[in-house]
């Protein structure tokens, strides 16, 4: 199943975001926790599930594998997908501005 541009899961979005800077799987969890200000505590099963899937869909690649640790980075396709999702989310926020006014 390759990525077709449908809305991303939160986990997928944050992992792509975190991999804008190449990194080890190991550190991704803490980075994501930091970036989301502690809101997201990603489980290791989810993290590696998403990494496997993104790799298969060629949204990320393994930049370096020294046998002990793999370094992942986002690909051009991954960047495009992330950007498209970002725009979609931004649109959603703008469209929902009414919420802030009324609630």
């Amino acid at each position, binding site marked *: *199943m390759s990525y077709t541009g449908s809305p991303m*899961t*939160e*986990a*997928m979005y944050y992992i792509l975001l975190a991999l804008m800077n190449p990194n*080890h*799987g*190991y550190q991704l*969890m803490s980075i994501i926790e930091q970036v989301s200000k502690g809101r*997201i*505590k*990603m*489980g*290791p*099963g*989810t*993290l*590696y*599930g*998403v990494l*496997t*899937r993104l790799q298969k869909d060629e949204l990320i690649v393994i930049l370096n594998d020294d046998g*002990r*640790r*793999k370094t992942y980075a986002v690909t051009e396709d991954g960047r495009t997908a992330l950007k498209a999702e970002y725009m979609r989310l931004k649109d959603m926020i703008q469209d929902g501005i009414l919420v802030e006014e009324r609630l």
Partner: protein
Amino acid sequence: MGKLVKRLMLDDIHAIGRNESWFSDMAKKGLHLKKFGRLFIHFEKGKPKETNYRIDIIMKKPSQEQLEVYRDCGWDIVANNGNFYIFSADKMSFSTELHTDPIEQGFSLSELNKRLKNNLIIISIAMLLFFGMMFSLFFFNEEPFLFMIMGSFVQQLLLVVVECYVFYSAIRNYVAIRSLKKSLLQGRTINHNENYRKARLTSGILAGIFLPLALVTIFIPFVQITKSKDYTLPEGNTNLPIIKLADIEQNPKLMREKSYYSKNVDMANRVRYSWSLLAPVQYEIDEHGIIDGELWGDKSGEYSPSITTRYYKLTFGSLAENITFDLISRYVFRDDTEIKEINSSELDKLYIAEDTISKQIFAAKDNQVFYVAYYGNGEIEDIIPLVEEKLNSCEE
């Protein structure tokens, strides 16, 4: 290391929540999961502990780095079989759940789901072919009842049952994963405390029926082989259920006519004993004789009568009549041979078929079936009392 305790797997490992819940309850009793297979699961005896278990399906073998990350989050790998990995964590000390996103977990099941689906399709086709084959073996058989008591019929029947179980398992695996995937994709997390008792009981009952059947299926051919034997028909009196040439010919000059030997057995004077579940006593006995100085009626050579006896003791007497008919269908070759039913006070059924070269008698009494094919000058009327007497004595 503590003592290992073996338990039957019973439930389908694909039913993730149920198994996780069961493992946790076992740990509470001091039985800690060590390894698991298709049939058995091993626990190590130790102190009771509150432990969480998670079954994770990982299609690509996890790297050392990955397992380290799991460990840092409190999840230790305890067992692995194929794509199934089981992790455990102390109930108090793990930092995050293994899976925090049900939809992503649902995606991760796609490959397995597809594999199980293909598996099910292949098994379905194989089942269809298999059933078709079994069906035609029995129903397009000229003598279905004879086929039933000979050779591997019961075993084939059991094989069908075992095949059905394999089929059922394939369906069960596929349905479990498909519904799990569906529920995850709808955002529902796995219930790690699902009630497992009922499912284990049902599976236990099914396995209790099918596993022994599978074992029997495996052992029947061995019993059949060890029980069957061939040997040369002893001269003189025997307890065997046969009509001897000497009883018919009543001629002191009758000698045995020997033929070639195979494995030390005279093939013309051979006793073949076999066993099957539906006919535990089966004899096929040939005897050939020769009378020195006497010629066949057409002067074609020295008079050499022969006789073949088949005897079946059946498990179910209700089969006897049908077996008799099947024997007639198999051994009366010529269409113009007249088959006569004879009334006998001693026997349940008695048929004779006589042509220019052979005299055949088919008899049934209770659970015994008897067949004689005689080639010689003796009269069929003289053989019938011998058959009656033999069946009466064999019954005792």
